[in-house]
């Protein structure tokens, strides 16, 4: 299939763009476009046109998805033409030229089963995929199978997939145990869980033992608890008596003493405290009164001795303010001296600067006489320009000298180089020889192929059973076709199956018949059964009896005696009739009861009859089947007798026919190899003659017996040397021209600098005049004058500042003196004559003394008022104390204060005894465990204290021993209960079993993944190997020729070697006979090897199916020009078999293609998306 016209109506950048790809005889279409010209877009458009636009296409950025359209006119190899368009969508996306939907099947004959993967993978080759293919070959380490598979499939990276599968499988499991691998992790977990299940499983015996121990412990504990309860009861009684007896005795004593204090008064509890407090208060208040009166008197005396100057105190703020200013006035006086000195120094400096400027300084060096800022700036700029001009003139001068030296050198070198001879004739000769290159290797290969074909035929013939003749005889046999054999196989197989089935059916029918008979026998005697016949007979007999009786006794008929005798003897007619009724009823009843058994009997009889009939039918069928089978086998044997070969089973003979075909294919291969060998030998002789003549014409002296490849190499070396010399001379000429041009440029720069110097000189004169400098002043002198003028301006400004500060200091001192004099005249006239700063200092000190005296006077007045208030308070306290004593006397009924202490003592004793009696009663009741006072008293009196103590001690010992035993038994029971609870809750066996199942799940998961990975690797490896076996010969033969051409004869053929694992590896053989593995090839050579294999694979594909266009995208980026030309020639050669498109942005490649193609075999057209 070829694309005659590609229409990018609305796709990517393109709008209504047409690419014409027709042209008779055009073998290579070169589509030349700059970056972003739309090469990638056009390339993708072809695949999208043929196989549909992807849902997420990146080429819908300019036109809406629904508007995308690609069109093409396609021509199949049989001449059929089809014009189609493609839109984006889910269905009905293939359209005719009027946008009517077309069925996808119209493309079938153009694609011949190829899918997008094949089209883009096998028939599309980009620079990147070429490099990736080369890299993959490096990774395959020369493994021939992988290399052929990669080059021969539409999908890249089979080697990577295989390595990844192996790596993933190894990561999961290896035969050698590795603890970190998931398989062994899961297996270890499973084993650990299994152990855990065993350890934690609760066994019945353990449970039963625990239950028994628990029951024993509980019984013993209950017994001990009973005994403890009884002892505790006795001990409680004894303990109660022990507690209450002493208190009962004490209570009796207290009650006796209380009887003697019946007349004692009742006073407040704190009566004694109140009396003592009143007496203490009276003593203290007397002392306080004396002390306060003395304090007041002393303060009044001190107040009288104070003398305070009130006017000075009134003017205190003014004195303090002036005293604070005094410091600043003294500092100003000191600074004034320094400022005067500074003024003198600045005046001297100004005079020195004026002297330096001389006449230019103007009148007296005043800053106002300095030149204006604009003039000074102009002068400064010109000074800078002068330096710049000087530097540039120096630089340009140096560069010009160097350029002049370079021109002289280049001319000398050119004169020394010889002019190369004309190489045209030699070039033509080499081109012709290269076209025929590799013929010797081809011949060698053909010889090998022929030998291998002979060997294969011999082996195939030897392996063919039932035939002892030669291959030609075998070919001449008129064997039955495969369809006939398969038909016999089918029919004989079917007949055999039918015969087996008939035999089985016969056996089953016999078995069924036997079974029925057996079941009938097992059911018992049929005559004993109340069958329907038996019941009918009994009823008939009953009816016969009734008929005789009715006729004799009801109708009065005469009945023959013989008829009656036939039923029963005369006197027994009625009895026999009743028996007949009974028998019929009994039989009917039995039939009712045995219904199931009878039905079963009937069914079995019917089944036996049916089985008999079925057996007879099966016998007939079995005989028919055996007869048919025998007839078929006879026909089969007759068929092969006509051929002259002994007949085995159809399946065996089908295999024999397949093997016969293998032998015939080997025979065909032998004949083809032989023909090819003859052709190769003749062609090599012709090519060799032509090459020798060409070399001799070119001045060489080739050996007539040299190998053909050596002759080609010699011619190529001669041609390369001549081309190199030519390139060197052209380069020297170009270099000389460039250096002369550089020298001229430097001259022009020197002239321009001289003109700039003249302009500067004029400007300099004007500037000097403006600043009043002499006409001949140099730029350095002018720069010095500018510095002096700036110094004068700075000094003058400093002098003005000093003058202002002197005036301010003198004014501040005068104002201070006047204020001091005014103040002192008013408050301290005796100091008015003193120096102002000293006088204000003395006034300040006197003011501080006056302030201290005033504060002291305030303190004394406060102290006097406090003493008077304290004395008044002490007098009031004394009066309260005397009132308290009087109240106590009244309560106790005392005549005088002296009787009070004794009355208070009696009252306190009575109160104490009452409280003691109450307390004792409470304690006794509290200890009596609910008994009353009288009951407790009775209990205490009932037992002798000595006997009670001895019994209590014995009880305590016994209880302690029993309690210890109870504790031990309780702990034992608790432990057994706890154990029981743990057992009932489960000891972790369930969890361990769950963990075991989880580990099993992991193991299953890991093993499943490993099995699949390992199998996938196995399949891929076998697939690769099978492809190698099938394709190695033809693919390598073609690829070798292509590789030789692409490497310009550097490599002449391939050799197959075997690695350590006996895998076949590919080596390249150089023209000198040395070999090179793929890992030893340069990147570019490896690319060329992959290209050779890929082109060979494409040619193989084309030989078997409808051709597809081969699309190359910037393939030759890493090829030098010569190898790129060779590559282009390979593409042109491929163009004889199918359409070839080359997209490139290298214009020189397009040019090389034109040269390689010559005539109209190559068509170059520009591509532009913006058009």
């Amino acid at each position, binding site marked *: 299939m070829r694309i005659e016209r590609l229409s990018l109506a609305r796709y990517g950048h393109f709008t209504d763009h047409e690419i014409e790809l027709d042209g008779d005889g055009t073998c290579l279409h070169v589509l030349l476009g700059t970056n972003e010209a739309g090469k990638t877009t056009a390339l993708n458009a072809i695949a999208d046109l043929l196989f549909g636009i992807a849902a997420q296409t990146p080429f819908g950025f300019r036109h809406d998805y629904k508007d995308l359209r690609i069109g093409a006119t396609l021509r199949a190899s049989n001449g059929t033409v089809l014009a189609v368009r493609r839109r984006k969508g889910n269905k009905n996306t293939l359209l005719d030229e009027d946008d009517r939907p077309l069925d996808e099947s119209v493309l079938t004959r153009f694609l011949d089963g190829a899918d997008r993967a094949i089209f883009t993978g096998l028939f599309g080759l980009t620079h990147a995929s070429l490099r990736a293919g080369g890299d993959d070959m490096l990774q395959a380490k020369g493994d021939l199978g992988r290399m052929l598979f990669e080059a021969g499939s539409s999908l890249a990276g089979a080697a990577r997939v295989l390595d990844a599968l192996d790596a993933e499988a190894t990561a999961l499991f290896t035969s050698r145990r590795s603890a970190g691998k998931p398989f062994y992790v899961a297996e270890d977990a499973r084993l650990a869980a299994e152990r855990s299940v065993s350890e934690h499983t609760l066994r019945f015996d353990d449970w039963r033992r625990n239950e028994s121990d628990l029951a024993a412990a509980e019984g013993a504990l209950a017994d001990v608890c009973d005994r403890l309860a009884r002892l505790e009861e006795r001990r409680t009684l004894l303990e109660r008596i022990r507690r209450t007896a002493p208190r009962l005795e004490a209570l009796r004593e207290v009650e006796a003493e209380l009887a003697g204090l019946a007349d004692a008064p009742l006073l407040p509890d704190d009566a004694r405290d109140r009396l003592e407090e009143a007496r203490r208060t009276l003593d203290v208040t007397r002392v306080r009164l004396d002390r306060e009166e003395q304090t007041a008197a002393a303060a009044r005396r001190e107040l009288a001795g104070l003398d305070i100057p009130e006017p000075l105190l009134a003017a205190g703020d003014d004195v303090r303010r002036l005293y604070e200013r005094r410091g600043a006035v003294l500092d100003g006086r000191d600074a004034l001296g320094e400022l005067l000195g500074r003024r003198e120094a600045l005046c001297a400096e100004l005079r020195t600067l004026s002297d330096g400027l001389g006449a230019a300084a103007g009148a007296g060096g005043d800053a106002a006489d300095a030149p204006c800022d604009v003039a000074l700036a102009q002068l400064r700029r010109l000074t800078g320009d002068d330096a710049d001009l000087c530097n540039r003139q120096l630089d340009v001068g140096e560069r010009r000298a160097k350029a002049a030296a370079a021109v002289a050198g280049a001319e000398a070198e050119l004169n020394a180089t010889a002019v190369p001879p004309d190489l045209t004739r030699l070039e033509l000769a080499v081109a012709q020889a290269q076209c025929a290159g590799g013929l010797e290797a081809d011949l060698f290969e053909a010889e090998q192929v022929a030998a291998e074909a002979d060997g294969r035929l011999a082996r195939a013939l030897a392996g063919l059973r039932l035939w002892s003749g030669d291959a030609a005889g075998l070919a001449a046999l008129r064997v039955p076709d495969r369809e006939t054999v398969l038909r016999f196989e089918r029919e004989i197989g079917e007949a055999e199956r039918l015969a087996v089935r008939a035999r089985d059916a016969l056996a089953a029918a016999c078995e069924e018949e036997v079974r029925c008979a057996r079941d009938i026998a097992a059911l018992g005697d049929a005559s004993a059964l109340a069958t329907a016949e038996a019941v009918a007979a009994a009823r008939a007999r009953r009816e016969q009896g009734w008929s005789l009786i009715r006729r004799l006794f009801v109708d009065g008929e005469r009945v023959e005696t013989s008829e009656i005798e036939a039923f029963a003897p005369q006197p027994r007619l009625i009895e026999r009739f009743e028996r007949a009724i009974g028998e019929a009823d009994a039989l009917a009843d039995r039939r009712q009861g045995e219904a199931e058994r009878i039905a079963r009997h009937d069914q079995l009889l019917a089944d036996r009859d049916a089985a008999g009939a079925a057996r007879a039918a099966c016998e007939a069928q079995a005989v028919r089947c055996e007869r048919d089978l025998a007839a078929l086998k006879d026909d089969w044997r007759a068929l092969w007798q006509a051929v002259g070969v002994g007949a085995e089973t159809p399946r065996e003979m089908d295999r024999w026919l397949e093997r016969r075909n293998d032998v015939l294919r080997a025979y065909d291969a032998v004949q083809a190899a032989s023909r090819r060998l003859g052709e190769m030998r003749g062609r090599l002789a012709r090519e060799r003659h032509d090459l020798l003549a060409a070399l001799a014409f070119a001045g060489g002296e080739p050996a007539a017996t040299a190998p053909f490849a050596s002759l080609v190499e010699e011619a190529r070396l001669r041609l390369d040397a001549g081309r190199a010399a030519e390139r060197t001379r052209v380069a020297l000429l170009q270099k000389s021209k460039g250096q002369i041009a550089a020298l001229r440029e430097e001259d022009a720069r020197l002239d321009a600098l001289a003109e700039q110097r003249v302009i500067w000189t004029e400007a300099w004169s004007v500037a000097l005049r403006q600043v009043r400098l002499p006409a001949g002043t140099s730029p350095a002198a002018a720069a010095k004058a500018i510095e002096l003028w700036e110094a004068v301006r700075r000094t003058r400004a400093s002098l003005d500042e000093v003058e202002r500060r002197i005036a301010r200091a003198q004014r501040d001192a005068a104002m201070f003196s006047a204020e001091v004099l005014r103040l002192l005249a008013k408050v301290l006239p005796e100091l008015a004559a003193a120096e102002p700063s000293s006088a204000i200092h003395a006034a300040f000190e006197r003011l501080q003394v006056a302030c201290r005296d005033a504060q002291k006077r305030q303190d004394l007045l406060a102290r006097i008022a406090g003493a008077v208030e304290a004395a008044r308070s002490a007098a009031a306290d004394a009066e309260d104390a005397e009132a308290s004593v009087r109240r106590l006397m009244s309560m106790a009924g005392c005549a005088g204060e002296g009787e009070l202490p004794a009355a208070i003592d009696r009252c306190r004793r009575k109160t104490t005894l009452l409280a003691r009696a109450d307390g004792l009663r409470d304690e006794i009741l509290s200890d009596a465990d609910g008994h009353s006072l009288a009951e407790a008293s009775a209990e205490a009196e009932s037992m002798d204290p000595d006997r009670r103590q001895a019994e209590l001690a014995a009880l305590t010992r016994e209880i302690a021993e029993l309690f210890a035993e109870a504790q031990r038994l309780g702990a034992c029971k608790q432990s057994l209960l706890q154990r029981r609870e743990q057992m009932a809750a489960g000891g972790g066996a369930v969890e361990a079993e769950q963990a075991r199942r989880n580990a099993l799940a992991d193991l299953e998961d890991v093993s499943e993944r490993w099995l699949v990975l390992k199998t996938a690797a196995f399949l891929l490896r076998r*697939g690769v190997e099978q492809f190698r076996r099938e394709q190695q010969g033809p693919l390598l033969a073609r690829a070798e020729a292509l590789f030789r051409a692409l490497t310009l004869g550097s490599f002449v053929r391939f050799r197959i070697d075997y690695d350590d694992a006996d895998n076949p590896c590919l080596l390249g053989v150089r023209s000198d006979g040395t070999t090179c593995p793929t890992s030893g090839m340069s990147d570019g050579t490896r690319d060329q090897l992959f290209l050779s294999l890929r082109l060979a694979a494409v040619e193989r594909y084309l030989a078997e199916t409808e051709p597809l266009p081969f699309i190359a995208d910037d393939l030759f980026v890493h090829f030098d020009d010569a190898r790129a030309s060779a590559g282009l020639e390979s593409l042109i050669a491929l163009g004889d078999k199918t359409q070839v498109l080359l997209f490139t942005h290298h214009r020189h490649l397009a040019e090389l293609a034109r040269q390689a193609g010559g005539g109209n075999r190559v068509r170059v057209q520009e591509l532009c998306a913006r058009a």
Partner: protein
Amino acid sequence: MKFIHTADIHLDSPLSGLSAARGAPLERLRGSTRQALRNLVDYALAEAVDFIVIAGDLYDGTWRDYSTGLFLVAQMARLGEAGIAVYVVLGNHDAESKLTRQLRLPANVHVFPADRASTVRLDAHDVALHGRSFGVAAVSDNVALGYPPADPGRFNIGLLHTAAGGREAHANYAPCAVADLVGKGYDYWALGHVHTREILCERPHIVFPGNLQGRNVRETGPKGFTVVRIDGGRVLSADHVATDAVRWFRCRVGVAEALDLDDVLDAVSRALGAAAGEAGDRLAVVRIELDGATPAHAAIVRQREHLVAESHAAALRAGGEVWIERVCISTRPPGDVLASPGRADAIGALLRGVASMAADAEARSALAVELDQMLSRLPADLRAPSADDGTAADARLDRVIAAARDLLAGRILAEDDA
């Protein structure tokens, strides 16, 4: 009157197929069968049912931990305290179990003998219960035929552990036909042994209630017991009540429309959300089965581990407590690159090689030897089919080859896309 019909408790039987490596929530999984039984007892107490019938398989046959029996006793005792009697026939697992012989059950539990079918009459409810336990694990007779005739005037219930006419994945023990059971004239047949709830007949009712708790991915959906309500000697209703603490789901997720991995994960998230909603408060254990010819196939194969990890993350966001048991990938590329063995390139050769594997004895033998280095290391639980079972081994080899072919298709595509 109402009673509970349950069977196949398989107390303390572990849940299968859950990966420890991916951190399955063991806390939630362990004791799920105990929780299911506890839920049944809670229901019986809350609803004050009149009695309970158990149609066999209280434990796993090979399980020997006595604490399992103790737990059963404790739960039966709870029922006994509430005056609820329990009637039990032993199944094949119980017959095999040591626990059956060792355990003394509370007085409210009646176990039917194994030597013959017998009858228990509940006069308070006018009910006659007929049953016969398994004495040995493998009972191949039709024991239903030996059951006594129905008691006239009573509601007759038959307890029977049976595979009925045979069920997939269940041994065909005590086989019988529905007609055999109907012919007995009972009002209700309480069957056990088959783990899927099934009502074989109505009037009379013949019911498999299914097991109380699903234990593997084959036992999906709600699991529990049947509560039967009777009035006037007739069955008013036989309703299913779920007791499962963990619910199993098999979610078949069709991803034919998915363009990339995000679309696939969206579909997985939707399936997980639906499972979580259906499971309610329970833990949902889900097997995701991705299926369909999809443009995302290459990405799925290339990023299988990522997909699985993201699916687990989606389970965390599913709205309930969800755990993924496994992610099974059965997707295919849309235009199967391996679908046309007649193609002329190297892929065609590979295809022919894969196709010929099925019939190539030498290749199968070589592959089997290679795989045996792993298979021989597997424990007995996983090693089946046994080495001498050629047919099963062949079937496994076929299955592995088919899976490997799909994997290869994905990898080669993925490599092509990369």
